[in-house]
C-alpha cells in the first residue's frame, strides 16, 4: 500500500485531536503548553504534506515560520508560568481562577 496524501492528513488530524485533548484535559500548565506544540506539529505535517504533493514550496517555508514563532510563544508561556508559580506555588491550570464571572 502506497502512502498517499490522505494518510498524512489523517495522521495530522489525529495528532491535532491528541493535542486538543491534552489542552482540554491536562491540568499542568506546562503540559498544556506541550499539547499546544503537538497541535502546531499537526498543522506542520499538513502543510508539508500539501506542499510535497502539490509541489509548491511555500508550504514548507510556512512550516519553518510556524516553528520559530512557536518557540517564541513557548518561551513567553514558560516565563508566565514561572511568574505564576512564584506567587501561587502551583502550575495547576484549574487553580487559575482569580478572575471569573
Amino acid at each position: 500500500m502506497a502512502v498517499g496524501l490522505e494518510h498524512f492528513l489523517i495522521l495530522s488530524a489525529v495528532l491535532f485531536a491528541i493535542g486538543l485533548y491534552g489542552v482540554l484535559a491536562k491540568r499542568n500548565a506546562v503540559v498544556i503548553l506541550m499539547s499546544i506544540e503537538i497541535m502546531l506539529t499537526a498543522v506542520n505535517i499538513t502543510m508539508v504534506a500539501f506542499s510535497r504533493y502539490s509541489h509548491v514550496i511555500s508550504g514548507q517555508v510556512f512550516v519553518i515560520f510556524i516553528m520559530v514563532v512557536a518557540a517564541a510563544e513557548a518561551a513567553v508561556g514558560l516565563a508566565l508560568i514561572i511568574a505564576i508559580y512564584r506567587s501561587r506555588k502551583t502550575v495547576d491550570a484549574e487553580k487559575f481562577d482569580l478572575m471569573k464571572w
Partner: protein
Amino acid sequence: MIFAIILLPLFSFLVISFVLRPFFNNRPQLSAYTTICAIVGSLILSIWALIAVNGAENHVLTSTSYQWLAIGDTVINIGITMDSLAAIMVVTVSTISLLVQIYSIGYMKGDGGFARYFAFMSLFTASMLGLVLADNLLFLFLFWEGVGLCSYLLIGFWFHKPEAARAAMKAFVVTRLGDFGFLVAIIFLYVKTGTFDIGELHELALAGVLGGSTLTLAAIGIFSGAVGKSGQFPLHTWLPDAMEGPTPVSALIHAATMVTAGVYLVARMFPMIASSETAITVVAIIGGFTAIFAATMGLVATDIKRVLAYSTISQLGYMMLGLGAVGIGYASGHLDGHHALTLGVAVAIFHLFTHAFFKSLLFLGSGSTSHATGTFDMRKMGGLRKVQPWTYVTFVIGSLSLAGIWPLAGFWSKEGILHEAHAYTPVLFWLAMITVFMTAFYMFRAVFLTFHGEYRGGKEGSHSHGLHESPKIIIIPLVILAIFAVIAGWLPVGDFLGADVHFSFFGALTSWLAWASLSFGIAGILLAYIIYVRKLLSAKSIGQSLGPVYTLLIRKYFFDELYERFFVMRFLVDGIFAVFQWIDTYIVDGSVNGIATITVAGGKVMRRLETGQLQVYGLAIFIGILAIIAFLFIFS
C-alpha cells in the same frame, strides 16, 4: 431667532453644570435665577413667534436649515418647523415651565441637589422645546430620547429613596418599549421612502404613494412611541410610579409637557396616521379605553398625586380619542380634506393646552398641601381649607376646570372632543361621558378628603411649626395658573390652529351635549359630596358602623336604602377595580417588569459560564467550531 428658543435653556443647563455648580456651589439660588432668566427669554421669543406665525402666510415661519449628516443619498437637515401647532406648544411649554421653576424656588429650598435640579430642569425644557420644533423624525427622536433621559434623571432625583430609583428605572424601561416601536417605524419609513422629513412624509401619505400595510405599520409604530410617552394603555404603568419625583417635576414633566409629547407626536404626524384607517382606529380605541380605564383607578387611589397621575393618563386618553375620532371621520370619508386634518389637531391640542394649565395647577396645589402636612396620603390630610385658603381656592378652581364645569377652561376643550367623538365614534363617546362623571367624582373626592372635614394627620406628619399656608413664592404661581385654568378656554386656540370653532360664551349652553356633560360632571361632584363630606358612606364609617348597625340604621334611616345600594355598588365596583388592578399588576406590569427581570437574570446565569478556568474557555472554542460546522452542513 427660533433656534434661540431651544438654545437659551440649553445654555442655562451648560452654565449651571460647568460654571455655577463647580464654582458657586455655596450660592445655589444663582442656578435658579439662571434657569428662570433663560426660560423668560424663551417665553418672550415664543410669544413673538406665535404673533409672527399668526401674521405669516399659511401660518408657517420658514427658517434656514443646516445639513447635519448624510446616509447614502439622503441628506438630513437640522431644521425647525414653526407653524401654528409648534407655536402653541412652545408657548404652553415655556409658560408652564416658567411658573413651575418659580414655584420650585420655594418648594426645593434647602434641598442638597438644588443646583442639579435646576440644571436638569433646564435641560428638560430645552429638549422639550426641541422636540416640538423638530422638522424631521430623526431629529425629533433625538429630543424625544432627551426628554426621556431628563424624566429618568428627575424621577430618580431623590435617588436615596429606593422607590424613586425603582420608579425611574421603570419609567425608563417602559417608555423605551414604546420608543423601540417608534424607532423601528422611523427606520422602516426611511427604508420605504428614503426620507425623515415630516412634511415630505405627509405629502407622500396624502398623495397615496405611501399607503397600504406599509403606512399602517409605520403609523402604528409611531403611535407606540406615543403610547409609551403619554402613558396610554398598556404602557401606562410607569406614570403613577413616576410620582416619586419632586412635585414640580410631576407638574411640569408628568402632567403638562413631556407626557403630552405623545399626543403632540400623533398630532404632528396626524395627516400620515389618519391616512390609515386601521391605525387611526387603534388610536381612537386606545385613547377612549385609556380614558375610562385610568379614571376607574383614580377612584380608589389614596395618594393625592396618584389620583392626579391617573387623571393625567385619563385626560391624555381623551386627547388621543379626539384625534382618533376626527381621524376616523376623515378616513371613512365623512370629513374631507384639509379641514378634517386641522380639526383633529385643533380639538386635541386645545385640550392639551387647557389641561396643561389646570393639571399643573392641581399638582402644584398638591405639593403645597404636602408642604404643610409632609405627606401625600389623603387619609392623613383633611381640614386644610382653613389653614391653606389660597391653596384651597386654586385647587377647587383646577378641579372644576378638570371636571369640565362651565365656563372654566376644561369645559370648552372637553366639549370639543366630546362633540367629535359623538359624531364619529358613538361607543367611545358614551365611555367618555362615563369618564366625565368619574373624573368629577374622584377630583372632588380628593378635594373633600384633603380640604374638608377634620385634620387627620396627627402631629408626627406635620412640620414642627404646625400647619400653615405656603410661602408667596409657591402661592403666586398657583394663582396665575388658576387664572389660566379659568380663561384658557376662552382663547381662540382652535381658530389659530385652523379649525373654525365658533366661540360663544353663552351660546355653548344651547346644545344638549353641553347640558349632558355638565350634568354628568355635576352628578359626580354631588356623589363625592354625599359620600365624603357627609362621611356616611365612606369606607371608614362603614367599618366603624358595623358594630352599632342598628342604631345607625334608625338614626340615618333616610340614607338606609342609598347606603345599601351603595354597598352593593361598592362591592361590584370594587370587584371590577380588583380585576383591573390585578390585570395591571400581574399582566401588564408583570410582563413589562418580566422582560427586564429575565434579561437581568439571564445575565446572572450566563456569567456563571465564565468559570475562570481556561480549559473551559478552550472547550468553548471547540464546541463553537463544531456548532458552526453543524450549522453550515444543516443549512447549506
